[in-house]
């Protein structure tokens, strides 16, 4: 799966902002997100908790609480979903855009059988008999590789394991052959051993329906195997966008590099994992400048004052990356750097030793490192 343009555009999000009122002032959960999804394509959205990736998807589904203030446009197949009525949204949800949530233990209603809950999704959009909906439910359970689907269809959620339940949720998502499936951290709540199986079921679902997919995760390993393109989010904004290979091999934003550094790699066993110091900023009363500044080893005066725009970057080899964009004042310094070199206990000094030309001398003093 490489970054081929798979089909015509199906979903375009532009200038999306989401603000929640709170006791401490407005919470700006999403501060301007743009992305385009093509038919059949898999877009990975990566970021830590609170980076706004889930809120972005809920905004697409129109499932944010009524207190949320949403601005921007979300065009789905030519229709602006933010301007659509609740009735129109009801017709789109489950029929054309489906969503898979993080926790399979709580996603299913405990008092109905899984078959009923799948059939319900079919009956909401198709004028078929209950018996036909049940047949469809059994068929779907088979597609997501649940053994003995004709018996399991009458099980209650509590009789199934977490992995099985998440397969049921995937079956619900694919019930009406949607155009887009949004999977919000589909494997995070599961045991490592079943994560791969569930991802496989998800891939099978995507193949069977031909849907485009938005795959939200904080696990870069999941992204690497599935996504065509990747968007990295931090503090409610995309900070780097590009093809999956651009992001993995030539990251141009220190945060992405940090995420890669936190990822265990089997191909380089000797390398030590490098955590990113600190935690994401509070999205209430955000200071000006780049939000990653307090945790960034490359931060300088300009980072504290001006928030960088998302702009196209050139790859290390000099060829212009196709659609590879990053939001960093020092993105050119990062060409070819490894996480361990940038994020080190000693701060940024190491980088100088590796000969990367410092454009801004203050960036490399120990001032920012802690």
């Amino acid at each position: 799966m490489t970054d081929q343009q798979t089909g015509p555009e199906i979903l375009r999000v532009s200038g999306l902002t989401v603000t929640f009122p709170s006791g401490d002032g407005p919470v700006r959960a999403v501060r301007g997100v743009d992305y385009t999804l093509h038919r059949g394509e898999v877009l990975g959205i990566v970021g830590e908790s609170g980076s706004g990736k889930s809120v972005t998807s809920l905004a697409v589904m129109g499932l944010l609480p009524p207190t949320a203030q949403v601005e921007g446009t979300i065009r789905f197949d030519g229709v602006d979903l933010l301007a659509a009525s609740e009735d129109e949204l009801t017709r789109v949800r489950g029929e054309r855009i489906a969503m898979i949530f993080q926790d399979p233990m709580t996603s299913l209603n405990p008092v109905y059988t899984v078959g009923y809950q799948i059939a319900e999704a079919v009956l909401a959009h198709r004028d078929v008999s209950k018996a036909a909906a049940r047949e469809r439910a059994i068929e779907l359970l088979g597609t997501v590789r649940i053994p003995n689907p004709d018996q399991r269809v009458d099980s209650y959620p509590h009789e199934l394991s977490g992995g099985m339940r998440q397969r049921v949720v995937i079956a619900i998502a694919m019930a009406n052959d949607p155009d887009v499936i949004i999977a919000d951290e589909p494997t995070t709540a599961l045991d490592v051993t079943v994560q791969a199986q569930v991802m496989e079921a998800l891939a099978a679902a995507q193949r069977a329906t031909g849907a485009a997919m938005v795959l939200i995760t904080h696990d870069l390993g999941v992204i690497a195997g599935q996504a065509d393109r990747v968007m990295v989010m931090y503090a409610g904004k995309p900070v780097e966008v590009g093809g999956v290979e651009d992001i993995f091999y030539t990251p141009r934003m220190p945060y992405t590099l940090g995420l890669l550094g936190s990822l265990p790699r089997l191909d380089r066993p000797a390398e030590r994992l490098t955590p990113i110091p600190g935690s994401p900023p509070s999205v209430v009363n955000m200071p000006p400048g780049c939000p990653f500044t307090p945790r960034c080893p490359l931060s300088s005066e300009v980072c504290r004052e001006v928030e960088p725009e998302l702009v196209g970057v050139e790859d290390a080899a000099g060829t212009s990356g196709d659609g590879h964009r990053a939001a960093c004042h020092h993105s050119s310094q990062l060409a070819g750097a490894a996480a361990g070199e940038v994020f080190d206990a000693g701060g940024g000094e190491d980088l100088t030793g590796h000969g990367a030309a410092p454009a801004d001398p203050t960036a490399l003093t120990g001032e920012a490192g802690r």
Partner: protein
Amino acid sequence: MLLYAVRRIVISIPILLVSSFIVFWLGTLSGNPLTPLLLRNPPPPQSVLDAEAARLHLDEPLVPRYLAWLGGVFRGDFGPSVIATQDIGEELATRFWVTMRLIIVAMIVALVLAVLVGVYTAVKQYSKSDYAATFIGFLFLAMPSFWLAILLKQGGIDFNTIVGDQVIYTIGASSIPPPDGLLARVADVAGHMVLPTIALALISYAAWSRFTRASMLETLNSDYVRLARAKGLPRRTVMFRHALRTALIPLTTVTALDMATILGGAVITETVFQWRGLGDFLIESIRQFDTYAVTSWLLISATIVIVLNLVADLLYGVLDPRIRYA
């Protein structure tokens, strides 16, 4: 499910038995049944006291006395009353339905009101009507039931004065003598029930509406309701089939647990409106140190509560598949 039901029923039997012993023991703590005799002036001769003590089995130790009483209860004999002419069992039987019709109707009224308001305020969380309902709920939680009942009674009297006719009855459970004709009799009983029902219902309503609201908020914010909406189910379907259906399950337990409180509330309501029901019987029996009557009353009320809890348990099993197999 059958196994679950049988197990619940079997567990209830020892609970009832232990409860009956505790009740009997509590009865002995309610005072000496000879007190009214002892307070007489001039005091009655010792032989009279001894005879009365023997009639009331006071000369026997606690456990044999309890066993004899329990054996009698199974035969319909609830023990000797202080008032020699009074049959406790008969008295309880005639008063039972007077009180039960008040309790049952009040519970239904309270439940319907609580669910309506609880659901509405959960859906309209933080709206003006939510705040208003919350405040009213807190107000009823803080209102002494006897005070509210007296206020309602006075309201009824004032209303009748203004109208110039006896429209709302404020005293008794029915007219004496009862009016002729079945329809007139039913209307008479219903007319007498209006105010006591409101008084009794409002007390439970407060707690139940708060509970329904919280329970409904929990399901409304649950992941499965969000998934139901993501499936494209219409808002009403999500609300009733997924949110409300699941939110109401714990209310069965809460209602059953509150049964004891409602029985206590009925004691007060009956006192204020001068009903000759179970509550009135209890008050009179306590005043007269009629320990067997008090004990039998407590046994009846404990049985009602335990049976209702059993019913709620079984109902819970039907409504929530997770319990059935546990």
